[in-house]
């Protein structure tokens, strides 16, 4: 009897998760599809976003993401390699870095927004700009990237390291020819997760890359990311719902694609490790 009950509860919970997911997707599709067209994707917004499309918004989003990933990827990779391969020589520093990453991972995005505004926009004088937004997102994506890449490096079997050392391979060769290739899928998965998080980010961008919905001319221009655009249409623009939902549909589709790609990578990775 208790078994039956708990089975029903488990199925019920799983069903509710699925139902919530289906309802969300269904709602976004239902309200977003009427506004979605090729024209919507390739034209600039007009009338505060009520009319026109999201071309400049998509462009700004891509630029912000490119800055974020271009910064976070080398930094995250280097940090993960240091933590996994060299950090044990300076255990105290290693502890501090690990601690800092844990704290960073738990910081709410609104705090990143305020920090990004104070540091990148004001202190470094970058103002409201793609650069400020991208760098702020890089700080947010860093912990995920380091953790996932680090897990990938740690999953490399100890026998591989021993074999490499026993053959007289230098640490650099071991890292570049054996360990990093083995950890590459994890690095890609970490990058995708970071992109996913950055794409969905609103709070950190409002204070850093700003609201301007024109085509950005350079990375020093203020520009509006897709998530900020949705927020603005929903909260500040009466009559913006239709385009807001169409934008939301584009965002959800992008995030789903990234999720699928991450899963595919993770599966391929598990297969290659076994």
């Amino acid at each position, binding site marked *: 009897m208790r078994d039956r009950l708990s089975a029903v509860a488990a199925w019920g919970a799983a069903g509710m998760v699925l139902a919530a997911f289906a309802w969300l997707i269904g709602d976004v599709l239902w309200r977003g599809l009427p506004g979605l067209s090729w024209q919507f994707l390739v034209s600039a917004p007009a009338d505060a976003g009520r009319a026109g499309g999201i071309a400049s918004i998509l462009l700004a989003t891509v630029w912000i993401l490119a800055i974020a990933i271009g910064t976070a990827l080398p930094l995250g990779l280097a940090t993960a390699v240091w933590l996994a391969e060299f950090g044990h020589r300076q255990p105290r520093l290693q502890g501090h870095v690990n601690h800092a990453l844990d704290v960073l991972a738990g910081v709410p995005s609104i705090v990143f927004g305020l920090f990004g505004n104070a540091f990148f926009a004001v202190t470094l004088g970058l103002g409201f700009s793609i650069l400020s937004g991208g760098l702020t997102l890089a700080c947010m994506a860093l912990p995920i990237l380091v953790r996932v890449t680090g897990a990938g490096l740690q999953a490399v079997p100890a026998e591989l390291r021993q*074999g*490499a050392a026993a053959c007289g391979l230098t640490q650099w060769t071991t890292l570049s020819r054996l360990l990093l290739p083995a950890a590459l899928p994890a690095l890609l998965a970490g990058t995708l997760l970071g992109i996913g998080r950055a794409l969905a980010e609103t709070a950190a961008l409002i204070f850093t890359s700003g609201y301007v919905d024109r085509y950005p001319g350079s990375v020093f221009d203020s520009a509006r990311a897709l998530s900020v655009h949705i927020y603005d249409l929903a909260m500040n623009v009466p009559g913006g719902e239709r385009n807001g939902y169409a934008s939301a549909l584009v965002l959800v589709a992008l995030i789903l694609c990234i999720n699928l790609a991450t899963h595919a990578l993770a599966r391929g990775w598990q297969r290659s490790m076994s």
Partner: protein
Amino acid sequence: MSIHSLPTTTCAEPVPQTALQALDLTVRYRGRAALRGVNLTVADGSVTALIGPSGCGKTSFLNCINRMTDLIAGCEVSGTLSLFGEDVLTDGSNLLALRRRVGMIFQRANPFPLSIRRNLDLPLREYGIRSASERAGRLEQALRDVGLWREVIDRLDDPALALSGGQRQRLCIARAIALEPQVLLMDEPCSGLDPHATAAIEDLIHGWHGRYTVLIVTHNLAQARRVSDHTAVFWLQDGAGTLVEHGPTGALFAAPRHPVTADYVAGRAG
């Protein structure tokens, strides 16, 4: 012929050179002794079997010789260990050069997750052999030496992990001998292999007499008798492993001097 081998002596009765000498060698993990006070001299070109129950420090002993102990956090080695008269344990000694002179074969075959060719090519490049034709020559020779050449000749660029267990282990041996080492350390190299693959590896060791100095850990006493000319018996004493007896294999098995050896080789202990 190994590039490391020395000119043959012209004396009437050549005294075998000492390849390896351990004096009061002790290994500690986080302060706790795992192997204590080992004194052992190994002649160049000989095959020495290390036998004894699990946990008595045989792997720890091998790990000192190519300084794999450096990779283990909290591991501390004291005493002296010399390889052809050169000290192995001093910090200043060149680790990479040492590991090229001393090859190691592990219990679990551990080819790199690369192609068969790259498995040998990578260490050879690292060794400084720039010429591709020389690397190819060494690759072929090493694979012939381990009897793998015919089996893999048409799939050198296939992943090494696609090979069978016995083939993988022979590939690892080829990877080690391609660097022309003087000493080969083999830590239970056959324990994961079927009898057929085991026999193939024993044949290799037989063929190496005089060419490499081999130290082989084995739990298989019959194997120790078949392949070795000297046997070293390790045993746990006062909570740490130590060497209790060492001598020519035939004599040691026929007339063990130490009581634990007598029990062990008779199958009454261990």
